[in-house]
């Protein structure tokens, strides 16, 4: 699927693609699209809040986050398919080929880059949702909370994929960054979902 395909496919077709086979779109693309949905919800809340001075600026930011997330859905699908192919080749051939193992490791490492960005975008979408929940029209506060929850879910899923793709490298700074994004997103979502906290 190309970047445009994600936007041009009917929702039914996109969902069928997700469940069709082991290829993209997979977990990373789904996480990215979840963040895109979250950002569009924030844009909706902002648009429906005429009394909010920053509403237009927040709408523009939310739309930008959504567009970036859709592009990442495509990127993640592409690099993940490449990594998957390399993984299957390695399984078929058996172990012991250092060059092939190195190539596989490189592919998996590349596959961690997109989810890292998705997690970061999830944190930004959740932050924007928190702003919308605080300053937006009260009628749409629940939508802002829903946006934050979706963004946090997308960030959590993406952070998990970073962890998996980096494998044993638990001290890799990218893993720490992904977990920071996940925690930040959850912090914003929790505050909106349970204001008593």
């Amino acid at each position, binding site marked *: 699927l190309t970047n445009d395909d994600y936007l041009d496919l009917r929702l039914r077709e996109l969902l069928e693609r997700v469940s069709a086979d082991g290829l993209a779109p997979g977990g990373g693309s789904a996480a990215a699209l979840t963040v895109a949905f979250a950002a569009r919800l924030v844009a909706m809340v902002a648009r429906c809040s005429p009394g909010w001075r*920053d509403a*237009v*600026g927040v709408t*523009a*930011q939310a739309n930008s986050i959504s567009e970036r997330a859709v592009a990442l859905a495509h990127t993640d699908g592409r690099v993940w398919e490449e990594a998957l192919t390399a993984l299957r080749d390695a399984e078929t051939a058996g172990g012991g080929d250092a060059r092939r193992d190195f190539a596989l490791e490189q592919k998996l490492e590349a596959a961690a880059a997109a989810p890292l960005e998705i997690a970061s975008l999830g*944190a*930004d979408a959740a*932050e924007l949702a928190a*702003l919308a929940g605080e300053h937006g029209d009260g009628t749409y506060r629940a939508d802002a909370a829903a946006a934050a929850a979706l963004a946090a879910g997308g960030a959590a899923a993406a952070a998990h994929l970073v962890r998996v793709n980096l494998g044993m490298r638990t001290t890799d700074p990218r893993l720490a960054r992904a977990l920071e994004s996940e925690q930040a997103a959850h912090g914003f979502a929790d505050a909106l979902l349970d204001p008593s906290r």
Partner: protein
Amino acid sequence: MTEATRYAALPDSDLVRRCREGDAEAWNELVERYSRYVYAIAVRGFRLSEEDAEDVFQDVFTRIYTRLDTLRDASALRPWIAQLTRRRCLDVLASKGRELPADEMLTTEEGADLAEVEEAFTVRQALGGLSDACQEILDRFFARDQSYKTISAELDIPSGTIASRIARCLGRLRSELEGRNQRESGSRE
């Protein structure tokens, strides 16, 4: 304010006047201000190769230099440059034997790309009217796709205020664009 910054703040009409007076710094600013515009029309609007776009670029700026005195309304510099560029692009396409639509009959896609180039240039000019801080934060978020966290860390701005700052800078950009539109429509009346 440096000399270059002072010239960058000049409206087109003043820039044209200074160019006509032979001010070399004004010429530099004119080329700086419109070089990406001319190039974008050639490459994005007319799908020219880089080599052909370079030829168009050289030719258009030579024509601007030799014919600036023929421009009757100095505030209409941009549409004049756009027209020169479009004509030159069509000449290049004709010389390559490509079937030519009339200027007004560009394909929908090419027309949309040209409109996008115009819009991008308008926004870029309006950005120049904002404070350095606003230009910086908008560039980081919208052009460099930086996260709020990265912007906060690199500009040493408290996290949690970035989104609001961006929103306010966008508000100023909007006012700047509206002001420009009003000035432009006023100058045409």
